[in-house]
């Protein structure tokens, strides 16, 4: 039971990351690698601030701002300096590695015996740590998903979405598509950084290497959700992001329970993403085979 609760909590917590990756990969259609730098950036900012005695909630807000700056940098590299999106993201990611080390002063900051959002919630609700994690993560992702749903239903949000579909049309409609792309990447990395801050507080430490593979985790969650829910509308896509993240964590928990080495997890995740991405092609091949 405890395992189920903590798996659910992990899924909901990491859904914040998936939501951020969803904004860049799906809405903007920009493959943004900044993720693997802005995620540990959030962890670094939050851990350092919590250790210094700042409120853990305030630390998350600071992490969001830090992530937004990182996203804006990638956006400017991509739109204004015309650096290809993948490279722009990688450049910011590499730069952030040094910056994260500077923020923490070392490669790893422990949050032992500090007040994290989870310990505060556990005390406030007078419950076990895994229930507290579930409540806090669930509350956070719910608020964020509702906010994203509202934002992309506003005139400004619609412009960002449409820019992802068709820059020609949006320029013809009088929209500065560069600004929209920067804004989208800024929001995306703000969310990803927030997730890093939350995960660090849950793990009890921030590590400079905690970002490795996060992008693929986010993608895996999004794709799993889309396949399971057959998401086409914006609303169902958002729900799919959350559902997919939880399912991904369940899959991970199951394979670990069945005895897979934790070291093989990233390999496993990569294979899952490859399979999910090639699914449409495989399906058409099978369909063509049946007809022929």
């Amino acid at each position, binding site marked *: 039971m405890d395992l189920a609760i903590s798996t659910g909590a992990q899924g909901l917590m990491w859904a914040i990351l998936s939501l951020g990756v969803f904004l860049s990969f799906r809405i903007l259609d920009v493959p943004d690698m900044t993720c693997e730098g802005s995620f540990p950036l959030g962890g670094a900012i939050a851990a350092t601030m919590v250790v210094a005695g700042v409120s853990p909630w305030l630390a998350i807000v600071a992490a969001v701002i830090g992530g937004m700056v990182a996203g804006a940098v990638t956006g400017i590299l991509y739109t204004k300096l015309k650096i290809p999106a993948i490279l722009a993201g990688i450049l910011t990611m590499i730069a952030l590695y040094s910056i994260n080390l500077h923020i923490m002063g070392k490669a790893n900051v422990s949050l032992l015996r500090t007040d994290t959002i989870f310990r505060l919630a556990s005390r406030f609700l007078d419950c076990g740590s895994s229930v507290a994690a579930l409540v806090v993560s669930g509350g956070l992702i719910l608020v964020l998903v509702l906010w994203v749903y509202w934002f992309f239903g*506003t*005139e400004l*949000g*619609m412009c960002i*979405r449409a820019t992802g*579909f068709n820059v020609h049309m*949006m320029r*013809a409609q*009088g929209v500065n598509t560069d600004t929209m792309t920067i804004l989208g990447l800024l929001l995306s990395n703000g969310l990803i950084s927030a997730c890093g801050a939350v995960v660090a507080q849950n793990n009890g430490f921030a590590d400079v290497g905690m970002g490795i593979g996060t992008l693929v985790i986010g993608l895996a969650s999004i794709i799993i959700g889309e396949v399971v829910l057959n998401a086409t509308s914006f609303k169902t896509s958002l729900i799919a992001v959350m559902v997919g993240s939880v399912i991904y964590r369940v899959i991970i928990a199951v394979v670990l329970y069945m005895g897979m080495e934790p070291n093989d997890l990233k390999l496993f995740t990569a294979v899952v993403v490859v399979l999910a991405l090639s699914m449409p092609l495989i399906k058409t091949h099978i369909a063509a085979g049946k007809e022929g």
Partner: protein
Amino acid sequence: MLKVTDVKKTFFKGTVNEKKAIRGISLTMNDGDFCTVIGSNGAGKSTLLNLIAGALIPDEGLIEIDGKDVTRMPEYKRAKYIGRVFQDPMKGTAAGMQLQENLMLADRRGLCHRLRWAFTPSREQYYQNLVARLGLGLENRMTARIGLFSGGQRQAVTLLMATMRRPEVLLLDEPTAALDPKTAETVLNLVNQIVTEQKLTTLMITHNMRDALRLGNRLIMMNDGKIIADYNAEQKKELTIDMLLRKFEEVTDDVSDRMMLGGK
């Protein structure tokens, strides 16, 4: 009013691929002029439209809309004066978004985009009424994704989007080139109806000489980056396809097959 003065544009300047696309064009369009543009491939028709729209910036010359110099104004800023329909039906709309969402974006053309929920019931009703006037039955598919629509339906929607907020200049770049003849007819009739009703200043490129003669009150012919003929409403009434073809032969030996076929 649209005024183009001595505009020049060269692509790949200083390389072996140098191409003088526009070799000095001056053109004044009065309010309400509906001008069709014909010319062989590579004559510079699309380049001219792109220069006016701001997708390209001229090397020399001046472009004014309603007396305002827009020569170097970025495309997205100038969009408040200009409505556009592209040759490619995919280019004018956002495929993954709903019909009414596309219309909302066009409704804010040239205005700021507020941090405010984009739809109210009265707004939705307004968009639905506009779509109903197209007469294509799309008013029952307001929340369907545009990607599910046919090329002709998408061009009709693009046309509606270009004109729902009255543009100073409407630019149509072969709006029916990618459509089958019957759909092309429907879209052109819509163009004619909307342009005449709203008295829009319009430039429309076409490869079909019959359409060029049938529509509008002015016709210009381009060749090799220059305007080689400019017929006003009176002269245009007398024009025939044969006369246009002969005019083409005067300036060039190779009347393209496409033009010949389009004229039949």
